[in-house]
Each structure stands twice: as C-alpha cells, then as structure tokens.
C-alpha cells in the first residue's frame, strides 16, 4: 500500500474517531449549561410551532428541527446543500481569482519589493477574518441603500436564495481562500521564474505568454491544488459564523443553534459533516505537493 492510499485511508478513520469522541463528550458538556436561543427574535414561540400542530409544547425547543419546524433529516440534507453551494462557489472563485492575482503579483514583482513584500501583504490580508469582511459588506450595502433614501437595497444583506442572496456570503467566505491561493501561487511562480530554464527560455527569445503557459504553469499547477485545499479549509472554519451572520441556515448555522438548544444529535452530525469536508481538503492539500509557504522567507 503506498503513501497516497494511506493518507486517503486516514480521512474516514479521522471522521469515525471524531464521531466517537463527540458522541462521548458533547452530551456531557451540554448538560453543564442551560439551553438558550442564540438569535434574538427567533425564540421557540408558538408561531414557530404553528406547522407542528398542537402536540408540541410551546416555548420549548427539543432540537434544531423544532426551531425551524422541518423534519430533522430534511433540515440536515437541505442545509448541507446550502453549505455546499457556498463552498463550491468559494472554490471556483479562489481558483479563478486567486490564480490570476497570484500570477499578476509574481509578474509585477519588482526589485523594490524584494524579499517577502508580497508574502507580507498577503499575510496581512489573511489576517482579516471572513466575518469582518461579512460585516463590512453588509454595512456598505446598507449604507449605499440608505444614501439613496429608498427602502430597497442594492443587494439582500441576509437570507437564503440561489440568486443575488449568494453574492455577499460568497464574497465573504471566499476572501481567505482567494488570498491564500494568490499567496501560494505568487510564491511558487516567483521561484519558478527565477529558475535557470526560464532564464534560458527568455534568452532564446520565447514570448512571455508561451513561456508562462508551456514552461512555468505546469510547475505551478500542483501548488494551486494545494493552495485550494488549504484556503478552503479556512473557508470551512469560518462557515458557521458566516452562515450565522447572513442567516444562510447552512450546516454551520445548524451546528451553532444546536449548541443553543441542547440538540446533541444535530450538533454531532453537523460537526462531523464539517470535519469530513475539512479532512478531505487536508488530504488533498497534503497529497498535491510539497509545502512552499515558508521557502521564500
């Protein structure tokens, strides 16, 4: 059995182990605090149970399914698809925008920026957490709407929908992935551009586009995959808070609200799904090539 297969085998093992650990620990932890409903204006009131019929006692949320009045399985499947939409969108944005930005940064690099200039700036950018971006975008959209003195806004600032509702959450969640991809691509690209075969190709008078596409890009490609894996891991980590801020009701928000209403099963399921995505991305990042982040420093 080779190393790749071993690495891939570790993913389901990790997930199973997480499941076991959470199942053992979470109910005990939940018994240590009182249930609460995180979001104001969204208590388990009588109206929340309107669709459930009379047998459900009012004012009591036994689980996240009660919060929304949707059967447990439907809720989880639906929210998984919602989260998936965000992650796939973020991956696409990171691939396209991140690679472009990275290449651009590497090409624009000048002597004055020598050393870790680009790395420094992108490091700073990765330091801006996704939910700040979310808040910032929400406020900007609200401010623009307010200046026009109309009730309707440029974009919806929260809520779910596979339409313009997607724009703000997608932007917020993909910023770390984009920056991360750009950073790794730029670093790797700069390394490749300094190698002897590029100098030789240049000396022979190859056009820049041909040089990049034929000689440089194949060297950069594995790094992009790695960067995507690492960047998306950051996105997955910020998924709960982003979904919570935009009321997206994805798997992350379900997990947060399950903590509030003592729904151990809902929490464990959501957390395991997120962990599964995370481990898979880790495996992809590990398998796609050597890490290159710290080479240039």
């Amino acid at each position, binding site marked *: 059995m080779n190393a790749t297969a071993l690495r891939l085998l570790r993913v389901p093992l990790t997930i199973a182990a997480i499941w076991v650990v959470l199942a053992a620990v979470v109910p005990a932890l939940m018994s240590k*605090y009182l249930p609460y409903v995180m979001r104001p204006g969204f208590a388990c009131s009588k109206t929340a149970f309107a669709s459930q019929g009379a047998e459900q006692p009012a004012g009591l949320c036994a689980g996240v399914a009660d919060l929304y009045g949707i059967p447990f399985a439907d809720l989880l499947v639906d929210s998984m698809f919602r989260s998936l939409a965000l992650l796939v969108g973020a991956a696409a944005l990171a691939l396209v925008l991140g690679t472009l930005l990275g290449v651009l940064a590497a090409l624009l690099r000048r002597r004055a920026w020598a050393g870790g200039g680009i790395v420094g700036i992108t490091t700073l950018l990765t330091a801006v957490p996704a939910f700040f971006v979310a808040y910032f975008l929400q406020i900007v959209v609200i401010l623009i709407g307010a200046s026009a003195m109309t009730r309707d806004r440029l974009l919806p600032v929260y809520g779910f929908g596979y339409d313009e509702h997607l724009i703000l959450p997608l932007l917020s969640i993909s910023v770390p992935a984009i920056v991360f991809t750009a950073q790794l691509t730029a670093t790797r690209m700069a390394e490749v551009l300094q190698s002897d075969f590029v100098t030789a190709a240049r000396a022979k008078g190859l056009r820049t586009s041909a040089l990049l596409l034929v000689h440089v890009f194949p060297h950069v490609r594995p790094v992009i995959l790695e960067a995507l894996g690492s960047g998306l891991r950051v996105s997955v980590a910020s998924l709960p808070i982003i979904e919570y*801020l935009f009321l997206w009701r994805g798997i992350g928000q379900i997990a947060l609200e399950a903590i509030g209403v003592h729904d151990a099963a809902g929490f464990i399921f959501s957390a395991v799904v997120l962990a599964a995505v995370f481990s898979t991305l880790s495996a992809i990042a590990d398998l796609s090539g050597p890490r290159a982040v710290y080479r240039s420093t």
Partner: protein
Amino acid sequence: MARRDSWLFVGLVAFFGLVFLALFGERIAPHEAIYFVPEHGSDPRPYDPGVVFPFGSDVLGRDLFSVVLAGARATLTIVLVAGVARVLAGILVAGVGNWWRPARLVTETVADLAAAVPATLVALLLVKAFVNTETSIAVVIGALLITGWAGPYRVIRAEADRVAHAPFSEGAIVLGISRWRLFWRHQFPHLMPVVAMNLSQQVVASLVLVAELGVLGVLVSTVRSIDIAESQTAIRIGPPMSALVPDVPEWGAMLASSRTVEILWATRWVIFVPAAGFALTAMAIGLIGFSLARRYARHDLWMDVRGASGVALAVAAVFLVSSVVPERYAGAREWASAGRAALAPTSDLSRAFDDAGLRTYEVRREVSTIARSGPATVTIGDASVAELFPRPIDPAVNTIQVQSVVRSGTGGGLVEAPLVFASRGIVPSERPALTQFYLRRNRPADLGAAIKDYPDDYAGIDVRGKVVLLVRFQGVTQPDFNYAYGPHPEDPILSALDRGAAAVLFVDPELNSYNDAGPSGGLVRRAGNPYLAMEQREPPVSASGKPVVVLDRGAAETLLAPLGVDLDPLLGFDPPGKVWERSASRDLGVRARVHVPLRVDTATFRSVIAEVPGVLSDAGRVVVWAERDNRGERIAARTDVLAALARLGTERRAPFTFVDFDPRADAKAVREALQGQRILLVLVLEHLDQDELRFDTANGDLIPAFDLYAQKAGARYEVTRQTATAGQIPTPLADRKTVAIRGTGGPGDGRADATALIAYLAGRLALGAPELGR
C-alpha cells in the same frame, strides 16, 4: 547591525505599541468605561460619531473609543497567552513525536482530530460549558488552546523533520554530539522563523476566535445586565435599553451587543470601532511575526538574547511612560485612605456633627400611638375576668383567656350597661345562599344554604346601648362530610356594633389555642389569632370607642354560670339538618361592666440633617442617608461611618449632606427640607455588619461606577449583576439617583470599606469626575 532592517523596526514599534496599549489603554482613553451618557437631547442611542463622542457610543451611551482602549488589556492578554500556549503545545507534541518515533502515530492522529473539528463550534461549546465567575479568562484560553494546537504542531513537525534530515544535522550526529545539544544548539535556531510566523498567526487566529464568540453573543466572562432606563427622563423606542456588560471587558463582547442584522443600520459604528481595533491589532501582530521571522531567518536568536540590553531598555521605557500617564483620579485613593483613617467608634452622633463643624438642623415629626394602659376587665355581678397585661408574645396554649380587640372602630374606655345575649348573631336574610354558579368543587359548603332556616338572632332583642354577648358560630357539618364554615369573627362583632351595641363580649372557644405568628405546624396545629390580625389590618385611631373583649370558654363560663346561660349547644359545629325552634337570644337582665383602658402616647421623632458648610450652593450634593432602627436607636455601624465622613467632609469641603433618619417619622419632612438643594446622588447605608459590600441601584449607569469605586478604594465588594427595579431598593428621595450600600457575605465589619468607598467617591467628585455631575 550592519544595515538597519526597516521591517524589524516596524515590528518593534508595533510590539511596543501593543504593550503600551495593554498596560495603559485604560488610562489614555478620553473617558472612563464607566462614563455613561444615558441621553443627549433627542438623539437616539447609540449616538453617531461626533454627536457626543468623536467615535460614537455603544448602545448604553459609553464612548466606543474609550471602551475599546479599556478593553485592550483583557483582549490582548487572552490572545497573547492563548497564541503562545498553542505554539508551545505544538512544539511540545512535535517534540514528543520526534523524540520517540512510535509516538508519532498517536500525535498525528490526535492532531488530525483536533484540526478537523471546526474551532468555532468547539470553542463555543467549551466556553458555554465551563465559563463561570472565577475562571473566565483561564477557560477561554483553555478553549482557544484545545481548538488550536494542531496547526502549529503540523507546521513545526514538518519543519523539524526537514531540519532533522539536513546535512548539518547528520554531520553533527556523526561527530557524536548529544541529542539535546543537537536540538538546542543546531536545530532550534532553524525553527525560529517558522515558530515566529506561526506564533503571530496563532495570536491572530485567537483574536478572530474571540471576536467570533463575541459575535455569537457568547461573552467570555460573567456579565452584568445593565438597564439605564431609570436614569432617563423619557423612554424612547429604539435600540435596547439594557445590555450585557461583561466583567472582563474585551472587544468580542462589544461586537455581541450589536449583532442583530435587523438593527445593523443603527449599530454600524458599534461594530466598526472594535472591529477596527481587531483589525489593527491583527495587522500589528502579523507585522511582528513577519519581522521576527525575517530577522531570525538569517540571524541566531542567541546573539540577540545575549545582547538583551535593548529589550531591557525598552521595558524600562515602558515603566517610565507609566509615570507620564498617571492613573485617573489617583488623588481620590488618598481620600479613601483618609476616610478609612477617620473611622472611629462614635457614641454621640450629634456631638460628632457639631465637633466637625457641620451645619445641623432637626426635622421633627410628632406621632401619636394608642396603647393599652392596663388589663381589660369584664365584670358581671360578682364574677369578673381580666386580660393578661402586658400581653405575652407568642403565648402557649391555654394562656390567653381574655383578649381585648383595639382597632379602628372599636376602642377603649369603660362601659356599664345591661347585658343582652344575642346568641350567635345569625341573621339568615343577610347571608343568602349562593347560586349554583359560584359553587365549585373542593370548596367548603355554602353557609348561606345551611342556615337558611335558622331563626334571626336579633329578632327579639334590642341591643342599642347595651353590652352584647355573642358566641362564635363555628359552622354546620354537611351530610357529605364537608363543612359550611361560620363567618369570620369580625363579621358578627362589627354587625353587633353597627346595630348600636355599646360594647361586645365575644365568646370564642378556640381563643386559648391561637398562635400569634399565624398558622403553624408542630405537634398541635394552631391557627393564627384572628383578632391580632384585625388590629393590624386597621390600627386604632382614637383612645375612646366601643370596647370589644373576646372570651374563651372558661372565662365565659366564669361570667355566665351564675346567670344560667348554657353555651354548650351553641358551641362547635351544628350537625346536619339541625332545626332551631327559636333563637337563644334574650335579655339577661343584669348589668355588665366592660373596661378596656387605653392611653395616647405622643412621641416626637427627630431626624437630623447635617450639611458640610462652605460648599457652593449650586454644587451638587451627595446625600448620605442612614436610618435608625425601629425604636429610633442609632445603629452603631452607620453612626461610625457618618461621623468619619463628617470629619473628612469638613476638612476637605466635600459636598456631603448627612441624614440621620428616624424611620418612625416619614421621609416627607426631610424631603421638604432638602428641596432647595441640587442633589446628585443619595447613598442609603444599610446593615454594614457583614463581610462584603453590595450595591443595589435602579440607575444602571451607576453600577459599573460603584464597582470601580469599591475596587479603587480597596473595599471588599460583591459585583453587582443586575439593575434593581425601583421597588426593590429604598428611595427616600424620589427622582434622585439612589444607591443602597448593603453588607453581604458572612458576618464581618463593612464600616471601613463603606467609609473608604464614599470618601473615594467624594474625592473623585472633587477632582472633577464627570459621571456623577450630570
């Protein structure tokens, strides 16, 4: 240093900036975090930037910029310690894995697990489960550590692997160098850039996680729920009146109070200012990490550590700065210690006021009370019974045989008049049967229905101007083992008086078994004395009136046996279906003498108001209100505090007004006497004979202030968690901000702490602190 590294310089500046902020942020802030502006014209809270404060206010009306600066210490402490702990844990686990290869399998697996679970969820769960009053910061750091050690571990392990197989390592091993020396001297310097980068990343990650917890509304410490509505003149619709204010003020919590999307427009600045704090800090930390990584990529750490004079110089500089940035109102601490020193046992408060040179005046109030001056007696012929005088408190069974009822409408005096027996005073027409509508299950049966065929006890007699003898009607047993209970004793007594009786003798066979304090258990169940309750409900208003005396069975037989009145058939419950041919009422043909001696006591209650002289008349005053006990005796602990403050106040011209209040007089006269003054604050001293002080106030904006005063004055105190509602605390002067200072905890002595606290408050006021002067 051959060439100055500009990145290093930037990193150093950022580092010392953060250290300075953590140490002195609170002091350089334009306002203290306890300074609230509850209202400002018609501007809605949170105030927009420039309206009250340049950066706007939070939902409670505090300066956002100041709160951010004040919260820097807690925030930076949490994230720095958590970041360092994460990296140290990563290094440790990586070291274990590298030292002994078989352990690698375990460390890798556990790191995979720890890395894969989303940090936000785990941290939220841990903080929710474990945060309580004592351990908040430690728990948060622990939660940050558990969720974040795997990242540094993976990076450091990878780098350590790389270094372990580097040619220089292999060369060193060949040369026979010890493992420890190999690591410490040769490998560790190569790990420095990675560790430095990782450290800054982990600190930033901790910062983000703390902010996320805040956004989720999970405050990392115990909170106070502060409501400032009582401090407002008008109540407006808008953002919340109350907000949670955490004990450890950190930036995440500031995001919590502004998190709902629905009011995002109103609270946009409330988010922006702490968010800017987060972002700037994150950037500064990133810069530090980056500059460190750059420096030690080519430079050995040990060279800098040996030449550590620069660091020492910088530390010295920071402490030098602390003398430039003084503590706010530091002088008030000296007031507090002066107040503590001025405390001395004081026996005569008036003398102490005079000695201190206060301007005192008395507010008098005359109050009349009506009291028994002797035993009530009833004499019929030769037989006589008398009440126990003075009446024992909580008498045993069979002690009370005679009891007078002195209340509004009845009264005292001597009545000698013909005695008339009115049986049980039953008048069926006055108590009609209830309609079925009012009858419920599990209720006593209806008395009206049970007595509808009874004769009218007042029919054949004239009671006007006579002494009426009544027997208590217990009730009627019902066929279904239920009871129709007789009327409350008050009814027949008052009914007889209404009919013109000059006095009432009431025979209650249970009189000797009643309990003063109300129904009680024990071996013998005793009902509460209904006559005492009658007196309490309507206290007497005059010393003369119609006397009412209650007799038990023994006393009644002593009086009535010579007359041949047989009470036996009338006592106890009537059997079901009992038919009374005619009433037992009749004129007894003798005279009875009923005497209930009462007297009027007139007492003058003096409350003393003492003012510190020489204070400008328009300067606001602080009223220190000390109540005496119920008998008008001064309470030693409160007296001592007042006297100490009086001495301190005159010495330093503190704007105190002391009120030594007698609770038997009402506060109205005092209120009128103080009417002309501008009163900033009323401090009500309550029992101070306990270990810690506790502050209760309905004015939410004073809660953080008093906790701060107590802390600065060195007083032991309990953190106030909630705004009291106006009814829960004494408000002797209505419409003034009032704080009740109480003792709590175990028995102890709160005098010195209370004095120091109030002295500190006065000191701040004298130094121009703005939060009280509004």
